[in-house]
């Protein structure tokens, strides 16, 4: 029995050790790198010629860069949902998903910070935000809270890794010399003593508690970047809750997508089971319904009143220039995923994966719709405004940079999956022991 247990434990470790990229993995990494490089070249052009290479002008000064930023901030919120909320609520089935969520959160918050700098016309003056920033401005709150959230996400990834690093160091021949040196550098001091475990456990508990208000703050503050300005579509007291509910939805959707990809790519059907898709599917339905409810409030209540200042904005969304995108975001981002996942058959891996993709794609376009149409309808229109200011379609540089940042975030996740165990080994072993007993 003991031997069987040992064998099972060994099998678990072997299964969960980081695996080298196969042919598909290598192609995937190269493809992402190429997209990143194209984005970097586009950014070089933007640095050289200025923001004039973008389609942003005096009306739409926040284009897809800021939409992308809001998207990244939203998706990063998943770290607090899966890791912190589930950990504090003792949701044990979420163990295989915690690191996936932490990886998504870390890469998303890194690229949220990067894309903000990309949006700046003169990034070399970025330090002025710290030297001369006004604490009265939500932009400064955003800078502070993104830095804080990044640091918490890093700690939340690092602390649970320590016991796994001890295991990884034992499998030098499997992980490779260079990675072994890296593991040794970042965590060879972990011996798994009782005192170390106690400190780590307490630290994780504190982190789980801390990250929740910070996560709520990061997205509330991001929503306040819009809601503290008096403009059609943004002038809402509901924006904080609306943004947070949307963020939880896209975060959960992205976890479902990554669960499916990892499950298939690394053959982890025993660890990421159908049950996980079943449970995550239910969570996505709940969050989609919640977000849909906030959308009803955000759009139907102003539409019922149809104030003159809101008229052009709402008409543009419902039946005008942005209508195809708006209804796409509502249908594909919320309603169809609900219709798929509400049925038991829809919560099987493949349909759940498709629904997750819909949520993520819909969420990206939803952020675009939150940012751009409002800017096209200012309260004080410019006199004799050039016709091209009244419309916005991103330039190729903007598309390249935005896609490059998305590819960059996926590349970071891919590399993290290559370097670290995607599913926490030690926690899985502990749960396995407890189950066996």
């Amino acid at each position, binding site marked *: 029995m003991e031997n069987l247990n040992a064998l099972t434990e060994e099998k678990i470790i072997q299964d969960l050790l980081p695996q080298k990229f196969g042919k598909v993995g290598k192609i995937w990494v190269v493809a992402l790198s190429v997209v990143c490089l194209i984005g970097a070249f586009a950014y070089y052009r933007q640095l050289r010629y200025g923001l004039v290479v973008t389609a942003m002008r005096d009306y739409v000064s926040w284009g897809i860069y800021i939409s992308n930023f809001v998207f990244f901030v939203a998706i990063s919120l998943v770290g607090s949902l899966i890791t912190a909320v589930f950990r504090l609520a003792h949701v044990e089935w979420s163990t295989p998903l915690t690191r996936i969520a932490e990886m998504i959160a870390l890469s998303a918050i890194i690229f949220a910070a990067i894309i903000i700098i990309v949006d700046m016309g003169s990034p070399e003056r970025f330090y002025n935000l710290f030297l*001369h*920033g*006004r*604490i*009265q401005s939500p932009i400064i*709150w955003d800078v*502070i809270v993104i830095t*804080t959230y990044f*640091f*918490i996400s890093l*700690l939340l990834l*690092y*602390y649970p890794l*320590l016991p796994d690093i001890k295991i990884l160091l034992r499998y030098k021949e499997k992980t490779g010399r260079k990675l072994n040196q890296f593991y040794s550098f970042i965590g*060879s*001091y*972990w*011996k798994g*003593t009782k*005192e*170390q475990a106690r*400190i*780590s456990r*307490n*630290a994780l508990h*504190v*982190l789980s508690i*801390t990250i929740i208000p*910070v996560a709520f703050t990061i997205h509330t503050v991001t929503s306040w970047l819009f809601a503290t300005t008096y403009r059609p579509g943004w002038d809402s007291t509901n924006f904080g809750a609306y943004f947070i509910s949307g963020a939880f939805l896209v975060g959960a959707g992205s976890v479902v997508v990554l669960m499916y990809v990892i499950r298939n790519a690394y053959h982890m059907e025993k660890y990421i089971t159908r049950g996980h898709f079943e449970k995550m599917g239910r969570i996505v339905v709940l969050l989609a319904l919640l977000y849909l409810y906030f959308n009803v409030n955000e759009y139907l209540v102003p539409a019922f009143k149809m104030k003159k200042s809101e008229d052009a904005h709402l008409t543009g969304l419902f039946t005008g220039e942005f209508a195809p995108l708006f209804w796409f975001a509502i249908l594909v981002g919320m309603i169809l995923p609900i219709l798929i996942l509400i049925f038991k058959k829809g919560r099987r891996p493949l349909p759940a994966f498709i629904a997750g993709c819909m949520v993520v794609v819909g969420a990206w376009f939803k952020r675009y719709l939150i940012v751009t149409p409002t800017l096209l309808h200012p309260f004080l229109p410019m006199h004799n405004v050039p016709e091209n200011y009244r419309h916005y379609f991103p330039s190729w540089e903007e598309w390249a940079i935005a896609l490059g940042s998305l590819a960059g975030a996926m590349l970071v996740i891919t590399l993290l999956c290559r370097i670290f165990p995607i599913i926490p080994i030690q926690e899985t072993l502990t749960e396995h022991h407890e189950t066996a007993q």
Partner: protein
Amino acid sequence: MKLLNKKSSGLLFVAFFVSGFAAFAQDSAKGNLNITLSYFTDNNTLPYLSVKVKTKANGKFKMVSDIPLKLYLNNDSAVNLIKAVVTNDKGEAAAIIPPSLKSQWSGSTSHNFIATFDGNKKYESAKADLSVNRAKILIDTTSDKKIVASVLALKDTSWVPVKGVDVIIAIKRMDAYLNVNETATFTTDSTGKASADFKRDSIPSDANGNIVIVAKVDDNDQFGNLLIEKTVPWGAKFIPVNDFGKRTLFATSGRAPVWLILIAASIVIGVWGVLILLVVNLFRIRKLGLEA
């Protein structure tokens, strides 16, 4: 003969058609301009001319820009050219009487101003003139806040009072003139004087209590437009309330509200205090590991 008649009739028709078409084209292409000349003297300094050009289109007058005009003193000979001007987008242009015409200007008590337009592809040539007698206006005040305006005309070599001229006595404000009392216009008496009592004691002024009072003659048939100003300390001092240095949500970074600084700082210190503690914990774990 019949053929000749037919040919003649045909040629006649073509000639009528062409000439008729040409006449029609000329009539429809060229418009008529209306030129208005005005003469101004502000504070008895350099006199100047203002010219406005308009045309009638679809039953409405509209100002015409980019019209080149020549302004002359007394007659339209080249030596008497005041200035060649072009109307701006409001259809207006202006010119001072240049020093080169000083002898002509000083040599007479009355003058004739002429504006000519030579015509272009769009408009027919046009001309306007204006006759004025040289005059000046003076303003004086008394200790009991009475304003006295005097209108004097040049006769031979001396200035003589003019009776019966309508004078506006007012306070100069940002974009308009405000009556000094319930009456807007006063008429000069036989001594050439018109007086008005100042009844606007509480009117806001600058920080020193100064306001500007004016006496002006508007569009007089004989004298044109005359204006004179005087600064008097009769206003209520305006002490501006400046919130710029106060601690507000809209102030500079150094002037943020104290409550906001305290709340923000306590949140940042609280959260980062926890995070620093967690980093310290990592060092504790490391130390324990190295000791083990």
